[in-house]
């Protein structure tokens, strides 16, 4: 007897199966909440965002398309969009200079933890590549990816020209994206060794 894959849970969610809904929340809540906390920095707000992310996923479960990507990334990108809506709404407040540093550190903390946890290799390579980026590129990338800042806003925060902000973001993404295709194959081979 097989138990449910992530995709099956989403399908169960779409079909209105309560058991699937509960299992879905249980399986992903730490990931969703963790991302929301990392992005908004406030547990109470993060909890609301996480709840809303599950509600949206549930409402749109029928439109989830397994061919487009994994369930985890689908759900996390829903969470990201909600968190960014929240962050953008309060953009009038100045950026907390600690927020980006905290987020950056949080990513590294998982790096350390996962290095000690065999079997959690799926993101190790990306994390290593992120670590290899020049600090200013990494910051620009995280400001965009985790906080939804545009190149113009990043320019203002970092007090650099717009063109420089764009260059940093693009360079960072180009480096991370360069080896993406085939990475799965390497992982598979690596896993069998």
């Amino acid at each position, binding site marked *: *007897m097989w138990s449910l894959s992530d995709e099956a849970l989403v399908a169960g969610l779409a079909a209105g199966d309560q058991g699937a809904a509960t299992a879905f929340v249980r399986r992903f809540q730490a990931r969703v909440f963790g991302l929301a906390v990392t992005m908004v920095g406030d547990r109470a707000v993060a909890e609301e965002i996480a709840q809303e992310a599950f509600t949206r996923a549930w409402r749109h479960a029928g439109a989830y398309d397994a061919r487009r990507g994994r369930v985890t990334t689908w759900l996390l990108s829903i969470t990201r969009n909600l968190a*960014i809506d929240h962050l953008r709404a309060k953009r009038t407040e100045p950026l907390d200079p600690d927020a980006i540093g905290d987020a950056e550190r949080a990513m590294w903390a998982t790096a350390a933890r996962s290095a000690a946890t065999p079997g959690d290799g799926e993101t190790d390579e990306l994390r290593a590549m992120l670590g290899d980026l020049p600090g200013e590129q990494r910051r620009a990338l995280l400001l965009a990816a985790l906080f939804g800042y*545009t190149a113009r806003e990043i320019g203002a925060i970092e007090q650099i020209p717009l063109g420089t902000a764009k260059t940093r973001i693009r360079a960072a993404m180009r480096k991370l994206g360069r080896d993406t295709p085939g990475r799965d194959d390497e992982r598979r081979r690596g896993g069998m060794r």
Partner: protein
Amino acid sequence: MSTDCERVREIAAELALGIADGEDRARALEHLAECTGCRAAVERLSSVADELLLLAPAQEPPPGFEGRVAESLRPAARRAWRGRRLALPVVAALSAAALAAGAVWFALGDDRELADSYRQELAVANGEYFDASSLELPGGEKVGYIYGYQGRASWVLALIYDGVDDGTYRLELVAEGGEKLPLTELEIAREEGSAGAATPIDYERLTEVRLLDERGREVADSELRE
């Protein structure tokens, strides 16, 4: 590469991160709708942006979160559903060419990976289980998948992604004794379609799912649990 392509490639990172400004974005989406190469480039960067989110550390939410959220997902109005068109936003619109370009994350072409992920054994309450089988033309060419779910109610979901002409079709179940049971209609547009419905008998007792055209002729077939 045209100048349009160059313009899109230049802002591909911002598009993937969702921070391109409105006008650039609108112009790019228009181009992406018709340019496979640029679409593949943006999809690739989008998968990087998505993967970055996995680096955020997991954290247990406050006690009671799970129960509260699961409870809010309860409304029972959505028992069986059918004929829902797949939502494919322009940027993600898939084509054989995009896959040939090697968009690993959009794993449609990678049967092995799909099968693996669908067969991952993950524990869940109530002993429900899930099954995936390929849906094939008489010649053996794969046109989609049939997903079966055994829970308190069983249901079957068909996903067709290629190789079947546009039109209206029906899904038919075949039970152990050869009995045939209608399931639901399925609409195929641009060679894609999906439909699912609760099954009248337990999934365990089904042996086959057939895709029939409007005249009742078999177009494709899936042998379950082979």
